């Protein structure tokens, strides 16, 4: 038995290759990024300081862009949740054959290329696109609606594109719920809605929060969708960083902007994780 115990104690070593990989290709570049963000001038002559951070925070436009980006993510994530929850719930209620079909439909957005997908949306949302043709044919509006190059358009596309990231964790969470609990609630006289809000929803919260975190981080950083559907008159953090890094070759400023963006998103994710912990503690603790 002693040998098994030693083997178990050494199991952590299985994670070493991946840890090494992460250290080399994720942690090291991240440290480099942090280092560059403290460079005081564009030519990176080596003098360090907080000049780039000060420059970013001093301009109200930059702050507005940061806030817009965080809000854009919130809007799209909320729509993902509203649309995704019933879908995930449906998945747990249908036959295995239908489940296979549903899961294929759910992951379809992930398996098409992001560029192809975005250009397809340009065709759908355009002035002469399917949506506007339908609206005008039905007489709902005499003028084509402005869907492309608007935040509404970006939110619609992000919702479709990031939906799987919301639905998959939700399915896992909903499947883990013991069906007897709902039956018991119904048998004890609670209505369907009360059962949902008192039993199903609280028990699925870990999945909801996992889905929100995944969908949110993907939405705020969706460079291709934001710039192609939004155009240049809508500016979000990924484009702002790209402009500074690629168009203007101002790497220190781009690095500082990236750091502030990362920190903001991490704060929101941290808040959500803390929320789920306290929830879980109350439910299971």
């Amino acid at each position: 038995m002693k040998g098994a115990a030693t083997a178990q104690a050494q199991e952590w070593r299985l994670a070493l290759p991946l840890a090494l990989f992460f250290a080399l290709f994720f942690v090291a570049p991240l440290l480099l990024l942090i280092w560059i963000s403290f460079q005081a001038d564009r030519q990176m002559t080596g003098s360090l300081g907080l000049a780039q951070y000060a420059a970013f925070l001093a301009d109200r436009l930059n702050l507005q862009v940061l806030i817009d980006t965080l809000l854009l993510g919130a809007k799209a994530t909320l729509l993902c949740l509203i649309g995704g929850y019933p879908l995930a719930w449906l998945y747990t209620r249908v036959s295995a054959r239908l489940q296979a079909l549903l899961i294929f439909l759910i992951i379809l957005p992930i398996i098409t290329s992001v560029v192809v997908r975005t250009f397809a949306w340009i065709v759908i949302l355009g002035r002469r696109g399917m949506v506007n043709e339908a609206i005008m044919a039905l007489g709902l509006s005499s003028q084509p609606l402005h869907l492309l190059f608007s935040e509404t358009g970006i939110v619609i596309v992000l919702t479709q594109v990031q939906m799987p990231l919301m639905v998959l964790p939700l399915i896992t969470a909903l499947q883990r719920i013991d069906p007897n609990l709902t039956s018991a609630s119904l048998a004890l006289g609670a209505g369907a809605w009360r059962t949902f809000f008192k039993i199903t929803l609280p028990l699925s919260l870990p999945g909801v929060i996992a889905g929100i975190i995944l969908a949110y981080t993907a939405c705020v950083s969706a460079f291709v969708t934001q710039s192609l559907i939004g155009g240049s008159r809508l500016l979000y953090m990924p484009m702002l960083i790209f402009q500074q890094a690629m168009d203007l070759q101002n790497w220190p400023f781009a690095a500082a902007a990236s750091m502030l963006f990362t920190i903001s998103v991490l704060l929101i994710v941290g808040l959500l994780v803390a929320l789920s912990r306290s929830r879980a503690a109350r439910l299971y603790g």
Partner: protein
Amino acid sequence: MSYNFTRRGLLAGTAAAAGMALIPQRGFAADELVAATFGGTWANVQKQVLAPYFTKRSGATVVQSPMLATEQIAKLTAAKGGQVPFDVAMLDEGPALEAIDAGLIAPYDAAKSPNFVILHPQFKGEYGPAITMQAIGIAYNPKTVKTPPMSWADLWKPEYKGRVGITSLASTLGLAFLLDINRLEGGNEASMDKAFAKLKTLLPNLAAVSANFGAHGALFQQGEIDIGVQNFNFAEELKAKGVPIEFVRVSTGTPAWKTTMHVVKGALKPDLAYAYIDSQLAPEVQSAMQKSPWNVIPTSSKVPYEGLVASKIAKDPADLDKMVFFDWKKVNQGRAAWTQQFNREIRL
């Protein structure tokens, strides 16, 4: 058959697989050149005309990687002190000056390039030859725009409310348009305030401000915009494909700039790089590229202007000198501030 997995064997195999991925792919093919090109028309024409000519001449193959000029500079800067990611750069005038200042490209040795001497004098650069001129004007949809536009001022006409398209300053097209508006408003490269004031009055007419040149082209095809700024070559290529589009030069003078090719400093295969650039200067290549649908303006004195280039742009090189040019050195100094100003002014 039995597989015998041992820990050591598995580890070695994994390490080998990981190691393979790390070896730069270009290390394998001895006679392969990596060259940058632009997206769109350029990627097509260089693939169809230049690549086969180069292969026939040198026996080597070429990988043409479409990249924006600014992207090329970013990649070369990142590779400084190490192995360069490509040997031939292709740049517009502004970025070319930046690359020279940053020491990213090598002086061009004319002795290694027999076709260099037959270029028109204004196209012989110390750091590399100009392979064409890019000229811009107004493109419009003749089905929806009945009276052909004459000048930039037509973009401001009330009847084009919500139908005009321009690009951001990330593309030279957008930048040259703004510079020309500035010039016509009486400004110069020292300050763009006059252009921005004028641009603000264009906002009601704008249907789209594309983030880049590629996205801009697609808007004409989809009927998203009916009129807007456009490159001569690109508009004519779309027209040849059957898209309802017409290109006109503006009456106030055609803004234009040179597009150049360079051997990258520290190039892995400098001889192939010279052969490639020299192929682009060859009269056969340039006259093939001047044909429709490409309509690339030639820079070699051995290629007379023909077709659409002659009828729409220039009868001879002297006509090119009458175009509108900008001081790209000053433009480079102002670009960062203007980009921020552009973000601010046109924001919804």
